[in-house]
């Protein structure tokens, strides 16, 4: 009986090794599944939560933000700071500064959810690399202006 178990172990084990080799050689001849990243890249899904960006009013091109500060208050890590002022004669406050300290942002999206005016949205940017911490303090107002001027230039 013991000898039987010995031989069963021996042949069964040897067979399991052969089966293993068959599987890896099968995959060896199958096409690769990786993406050659810097040369090609995937499109981000529409819901991808990148860092936030201001949304412009499609008509005027000005930010939709009314400086209520809800996003600032909802942020768990306090990475949003914004300023606004009320120009003479205007009804609403106008956004004058909106900075996002991306070094502290955890991309939770609570700010976007808290905004009742749809004034902030997720960007689709994921290629974020920079030489210093300061490179991650984003001036979102400036980014919005840049986007607009780029769009104008394209048009």
């Amino acid at each position, binding site marked *: 009986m013991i000898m039987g178990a010995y031989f069963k172990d021996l042949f069964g084990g040897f067979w399991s090794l052969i089966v293993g080799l068959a599987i*890896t050689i099968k995959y060896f001849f199958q096409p690769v599944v990786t993406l050659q990243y810097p040369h090609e890249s995937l499109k981000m899904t529409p819901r991808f939560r990148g860092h936030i960006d201001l949304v412009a009013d499609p008509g005027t091109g000005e930010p939709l933000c009314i400086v209520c500060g809800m996003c600032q208050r909802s942020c768990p890590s306090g990475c949003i700071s914004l300023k606004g002022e009320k120009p003479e004669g205007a009804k609403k406050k106008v956004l004058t500064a909106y900075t996002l300290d991306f070094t502290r942002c955890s991309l939770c999206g609570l700010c976007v959810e808290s905004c009742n005016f749809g004034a902030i949205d997720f960007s689709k940017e994921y290629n974020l690399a920079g030489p210093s911490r300061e490179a991650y303090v984003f001036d979102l107002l400036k980014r919005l202006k840049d986007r607009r001027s780029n769009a104008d230039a394209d048009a």
Partner: protein
Amino acid sequence: MNASTEVYRLIAFLVGLIAFAALNAAYLVWLERKVCGHIQRRIGPKEVGPYGLLQPIADGIKLMTKQVMLPPQVDPVLFRIAPALVLIPAVMSFVVIPFSENLVAREINVGLLMVFAFASVNVLGLLVGGWGSANKYAVISAARCVSQNVAYEIPMLITVITMVMITGTMNLNEIVMQQPDITRWYVFRFTASPLAPVAFIIFFICSLAETNRAPFDLGEAESELIAGFHTEYSGMGFGLFFMGEYANIVIGTSLATILFLGGWQSPVPFIPGGWWWFLAKVYFLIFCVMWIRWTYPRTTLWGLLNLSWKILIPISLLNLLLTGGMLKLMPLAGGAG
């Protein structure tokens, strides 16, 4: 042949062999990365040169320009000689390997014996390197390497003795000469030994274990011992260990080719034999070595010793007895038996 040409010949061969060993190691790393890449359904090196072919050169330059660190606690002498102790015997073994009928540095009658003599020095290098590193992981690794090598030399040598009984010679070129076509390769020569393919598999497994290749890479066991005996080595110190490992793989597969697969002889009579056959067979076996490495998990020390003492040694002894009996009953026509 006079003495001076013989010396020049030897020097030329030695230079050639060292170059072969080094280049071979470099490109086997490339091959290994490609093979493992494709097994894992990715590409492997591809950026440096076409198909990443210049990657080994870049790696070599990197290794050579890196500082060779000497950690404060190490034994400076042992630490320095260990990589050489691994590489030099491997290169020396190449001296007797017949790449083709005439392409052999020094044909000696006890070639087989010499290869095994040098193969035993290899383990000394690992022991010295692990001990000299003064690192607990390296010491554990060195102890593992020694017990593993000692255990696996036994079935390997029994198998080789069986082969020597069949061939009647230790001259590697003569062994090759006895296997002119595929039907007379010793791996299929059932008339000499009914367990011939088993003997081949035993020899192959043992050479895997002797060269510390997965699944027997207990000495390196990266998930247990970081990098084992070469944990403390940097730059070319590590590079030499690496070259030694790959040179040993080539030696192991070359011996398997010579003893069982007809060496440089062509498998079929209508295609001429030569070094290309030898290299093709060797590289095929190396591919198998890599294929095995990227398929299996690692054994443990107990598993390894169990395999050696409970399976490989009894079977190789059985093979020895059977072969002896066969040779007594019906002496081989082709062999010297």
